[in-house]
């Protein structure tokens, strides 16, 4: 069987714009007022992808750890900013702890996958490291923001229960145990769901990509499996770290009582 990548020529690329025209027509026809966003979105997507395409080609060419690590840290930073935006916790400074959770879980699991499981030569091959770390990070980012958001909303809506436990002499971690469990569960649910349905309901993007690029589907599924379990591991670690770091901020430093922000729902 012939597994070969079919390249897309410039003409074919231009042709794909026809598809945007369809979306544009729908928008115009239904007066959705989305035309401007659609045009801008298309331009941005094209520019961003071209940029990253050429950048990646360049980085793969250099293939040096001193370049790869800063790039991954930058990715962690961008993921942190994105994750923080999605958390409803006014007055809380969560950037540092989100960054710590994301980078710790990503590096820990990413290094294990790259060195032990995939084992390219050299081990820090940018072609392997950047996509792998990127996939972990994308998923951890979602999980961490879900977990943190849930944690804050749970504690706020159950502040009376947390305080009741404190009144019985509970330490902060004991008082917060139920919300923390719910938060970690909320962060892990998406990956657990995908583990259940992968291959039946959806073919993951990475696997689809490999198949389109000419890989043997039997090889692609092996990669996909590794990717999914590594995501599950990173998500679990990331949620655990972020919840472990965040709960302390919900208590006053001297009296270990719930802070005012946590007692009053916004």
């Amino acid at each position, binding site marked *: 069987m012939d597994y070969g990548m079919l390249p897309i020529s410039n003409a074919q690329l231009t042709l794909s714009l026809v598809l945007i025209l369809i979306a544009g027509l729908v928008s115009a026809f239904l007066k959705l007022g989305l035309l401007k966003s659609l045009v801008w979105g298309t331009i941005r997507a094209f520019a961003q992808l071209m940029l990253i395409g050429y950048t990646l080609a360049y980085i793969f060419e250099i293939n040096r750890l001193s370049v790869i690590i800063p790039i991954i840290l930058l990715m962690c930073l961008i993921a942190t900013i994105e994750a923080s935006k999605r958390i409803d916790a006014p007055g809380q400074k969560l950037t540092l702890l989100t960054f710590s959770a994301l980078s710790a879980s990503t590096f820990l699991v990413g290094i294990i996958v790259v060195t032990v499981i995939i084992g390219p030569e050299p081990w820090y091959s940018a072609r392997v490291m950047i996509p792998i770390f990127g996939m972990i990070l994308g998923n951890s980012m979602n999980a961490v923001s879900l977990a943190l958001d849930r944690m804050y909303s749970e504690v706020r809506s159950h502040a*009376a*229960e947390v*305080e*009741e*436990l*404190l*009144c*019985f*002499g*509970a*330490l902060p971690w*004991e008082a917060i145990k139920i919300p923390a469990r719910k938060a970690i569960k909320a962060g892990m649910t998406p990956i657990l769901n995908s583990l259940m349905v992968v291959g039946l309901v959806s073919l993951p993007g990475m696997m689809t990509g490999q198949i389109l690029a000419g890989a043997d589907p039997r090889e692609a599924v092996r990669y996909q499996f590794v990717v999914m379990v590594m995501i599950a591991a990173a998500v679990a670690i990331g949620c655990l770290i972020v919840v472990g770091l965040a709960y302390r901020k919900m208590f*006053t430093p*001297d*009296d*270990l*009582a*719930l802070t005012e922000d946590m007692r009053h729902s916004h």
Partner: protein
Amino acid sequence: MPTFFAFHNLTYHIKPQNRFISASGSIQAGKALALRGPSGSGKSTTLRMLARLTSPASGEIIFKDQSWHTIPSTIWRTKIHYLAQMPVMFEGSVLDNLRLPFQLAHNKKELRFHLEDAETLLTATGLAVTILEQDARSLSGGEAARVALIRSILVNPTLLLLDEPTAYLDATAKQKVQALLISWLQQPLERAIIIVSHADDDIEAFPDVQTLEM
């Protein structure tokens, strides 16, 4: 004379209204102190400050001649125990709820749960012993309020801070709870109660009760 429990110029700053609540008072062992005043005068906030659930801007609390700063807040709250007005019931049966405090790390070492004590208290407050098996979240307001009070008494605090303890109770249950609190005070152990209540009979039920106007 040694100080059993006293608080001096305990001040709280209500930021949105830029208003201050301030309270001073003291209480002897075996006695009850009632905080009185109109709504919004800071009675509940004072109780919360005494329980160290709300941090005061300034002030001092003395418990058995010791400054509050010398006692860790988690231990403090088991001795100076606050019972919120709205009863809090956790998932599980009433029995699970009564046992819950005994499962906390600090209490495991110091306290033991005795079913007979729980049953005695249930009967004293007019609840059937069979309620132990019931889902705690299905209790009526009056039942939950009594279960919450029993849970607080079972952990054997030294000072009970009660915020409207009879607000959810009918006349019969109310009398029983008042009688229970009075007999709890009269035990040979050193105990005291600070109570916030809009019901005069709650306050007057205690023999030689002191009042603090807020």
